[in-house]
């Protein structure tokens, strides 16, 4: 296959899905299109391939393939295919199209060689993913989706401002490493929002649990990992990212203790796991960048698997909180087993993918003698196993049997998708060379040393002991946890009260006024048909009975009204433009 941007396949597929009336064909397209991208990456791509075009004197590069972009491209395409299988039960055409488009635009970001292409796909990614939240169907989906879009529009605008500043100060359009200028910091701010860097992270735990069960699987894969990719390309070695990454790793763990909603708990662990990657990017050495890329690859798969397991529980029970679940493992044993594969992978148990990827990031910190980061990242590992490996499965599936929970049948497609993800999690853990060979730099790290295995087993084993002793206080509580979104949600209410409402009232006044004038002009525009004497009669009639009644009195379609409205609008626009231009 020739080297053309893989995003073409995915966007084309998204359009086809949106237009296709046959459900089965839509589902097939959603699975086959990402598989075609995998095939293209295997046989049609080599590091160094590029594809460019000129637009308005700018050289755009929608395809720039190198080792870093290819590793992310692989995992995004695989995740999209698995997500397509998991979403097989869905018959929502636009949600399916949004999911394929979201995966496609994420792939577009990782292969973008210039900043303009990057910004375009970045914004499209925000739009398509926001639709997945809106389509969730939960009572909170609409509000969460709107907040999600708002935050990402702010992030996109920050990114665009940085890019324009960069170009305005003589910077190149090529997407490469940034320096510590204002433009660089603005771009970093835009990327940091998508990476859910604390304290810009609350959109993630707010929105992901409100998407549909299939939508959240897609959401868990792309946005934060594209951010890791762009950080690795643009900001490798920025020391501030080590601090931010470690804070993220611990912050997610702490908030997960407080969570009752099972997918919000997993969402906090996305923040925690992305923290490892951000820290790896901050360290910036070849080993650490390898670690960030490897962990992103592993994370997309095991986090998708965890969301699939939690989503299956929600799908068959209609319940989403720890307090409302429990005691149903015997009704869905396969889901529990496959979920636990994901749990062992994220907890970095030997023979699972997280063990070979997370340790690479920590090894990167160790080689640079950043021991405080090593210790704190290990501590975050303890918290990860505590929540995703112990707390969530225990309170969701185990405990005393509950007969008050109606459990439906898990669709076979969900099981199949989980099986594929679990297979890859174990495959990478057992044979890490398959992943290491894809990494951007040559890798000599050996994860399976006796000391590393024993150390990990001791640490996680006694985390389990701690959980067992404390399980009485670890169950869910029917509360809402305040996060940093409190600031903009409260501020949003104030903005609504003091800015939006008066503005809307003003616009309504003008709207009524303009409408009134337009309708009166419409009456006049129709007047020639009745002669000039009719003008006076109509005007009088309109004054007494209203302009609409006057139009009805004429007994003709109100063509003049539309004409007058268009002319008036045009006149207003021209006047405003003149005023602004002058």
């Amino acid at each position: 296959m020739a080297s053309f941007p893989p995003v073409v396949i995915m966007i084309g597929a998204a359009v086809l899905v949106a237009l296709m009336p046959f459900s089965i064909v839509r589902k097939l397209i959603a699975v086959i299109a990402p598989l075609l991208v995998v095939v293209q990456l295997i046989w049609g791509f080599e590091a160094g391939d590029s594809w460019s075009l000129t637009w308005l004197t700018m050289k755009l590069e929608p395809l720039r393939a190198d080792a870093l972009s290819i590793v992310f491209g692989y995992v995004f395409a695989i995740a999209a295919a698995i997500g397509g299988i998991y979403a097989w039960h869905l018959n929502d055409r636009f949600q399916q199209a949004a999911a394929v488009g979201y995966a496609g635009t994420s792939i577009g970001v990782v292969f973008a060689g210039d900043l303009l292409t990057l910004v375009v796909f970045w914004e499209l990614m925000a739009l398509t993913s926001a639709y997945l939240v809106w389509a969730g169907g939960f009572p909170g989906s609409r509000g969460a989706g709107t907040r999600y879009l708002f935050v990402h529009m702010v992030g996109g605008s920050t990114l665009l401002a940085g890019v324009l500043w960069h170009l305005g100060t003589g910077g190149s359009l090529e997407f490469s490493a940034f320096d510590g200028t204002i433009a660089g910091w603005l771009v970093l701010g835009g990327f940091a929002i998508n990476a859910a860097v604390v304290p810009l992270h609350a959109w993630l735990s707010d929105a992901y649990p409100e998407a549909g069960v299939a939508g959240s699987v897609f959401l868990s894969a792309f946005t934060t990992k594209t951010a890791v990719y762009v950080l690795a390309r643009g900001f490798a070695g920025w020391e501030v990212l080590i601090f931010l990454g470690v804070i993220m790793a611990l912050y997610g763990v702490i908030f997960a203790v407080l969570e009752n909603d099972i997918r919000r708990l997993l969402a906090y662990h996305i923040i925690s796991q992305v923290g490892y990657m951000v820290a790896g990017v901050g360290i910036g050495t070849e080993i650490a960048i390898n670690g960030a890329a490897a962990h992103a690859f592993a994370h997309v798969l095991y986090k998708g698997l965890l969301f699939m397991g939690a989503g299956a529980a929600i799908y068959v029970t209609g319940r989403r909180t720890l307090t409302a679940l429990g005691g149903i493992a015997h009704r869905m044993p396969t889901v529990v087993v496959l979920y636990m594969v994901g749990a062992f992978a994220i907890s970095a148990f030997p023979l699972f993918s997280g063990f070979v990827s997370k340790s690479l990031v920590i090894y990167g910190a160790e080689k640079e003698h950043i021991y405080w980061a090593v210790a704190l990242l290990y501590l975050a590992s303890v918290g990860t196993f505590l929540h995703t490996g112990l707390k969530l499965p225990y309170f969701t599936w185990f405990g005393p049997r509950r007969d008050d929970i109606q459990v439906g049948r898990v669709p076979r497609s969900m099981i199949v998708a989980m099986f594929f993800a679990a297979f890859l999690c174990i495959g990478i853990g057992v044979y890490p060379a398959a992943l290491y060979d894809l990494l951007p730099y040559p890798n000599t790290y050996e994860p399976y040393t006796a000391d590393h295995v024993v150390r990990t087993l001791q640490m996680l084993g006694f985390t389990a002991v701690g959980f067992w002793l404390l399980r009485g206080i670890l169950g869910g509580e029917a509360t809402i946890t305040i996060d940093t979104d409190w600031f903009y949600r409260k501020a949003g209410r104030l903005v609504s009260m003091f800015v939006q409402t008066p503005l809307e009232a003003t616009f309504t006044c003008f709207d009524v006024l303009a409408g009134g004038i337009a309708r009166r002009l419409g009456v006049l525009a129709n007047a020639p048909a009745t002669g000039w004497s009719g003008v006076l009669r109509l005007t009088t009639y309109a004054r007494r009975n209203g302009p609409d009644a006057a139009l009805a009195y004429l007994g003709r379609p109100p063509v003049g009204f539309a004409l007058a409205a268009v002319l008036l609008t045009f006149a207003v626009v021209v006047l405003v433009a003149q005023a602004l231009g002058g």
Partner: protein
Amino acid sequence: MRMRIGPRLATALVIVIGVALSALADLYFFDYKENLFFDREYLFAGSGLLLFWVGFGFVGCVGIVVISKWVGHAFLMKHDDPYTGEHVEAEPEEASDG
């Protein structure tokens, strides 16, 4: 067909697993003294101590739970939705799938 584990088999399994774990523990302690089987990696101060990672896992787990719960109950967890004012119900409404 469900497989049933009889009491004798269960006892035998417990003994086998117990012996295996004891042997592994003995090996670990022996190796700690003699350093025969694996090259120990000393990541940071104290990490080479005997059973350091056992304590790290246990104390880390307890610390995370206790600190998080304290911070949560003191500042972050609310029984009433701060945005709508509604009381948070223990049993949520039936979820729908999108």
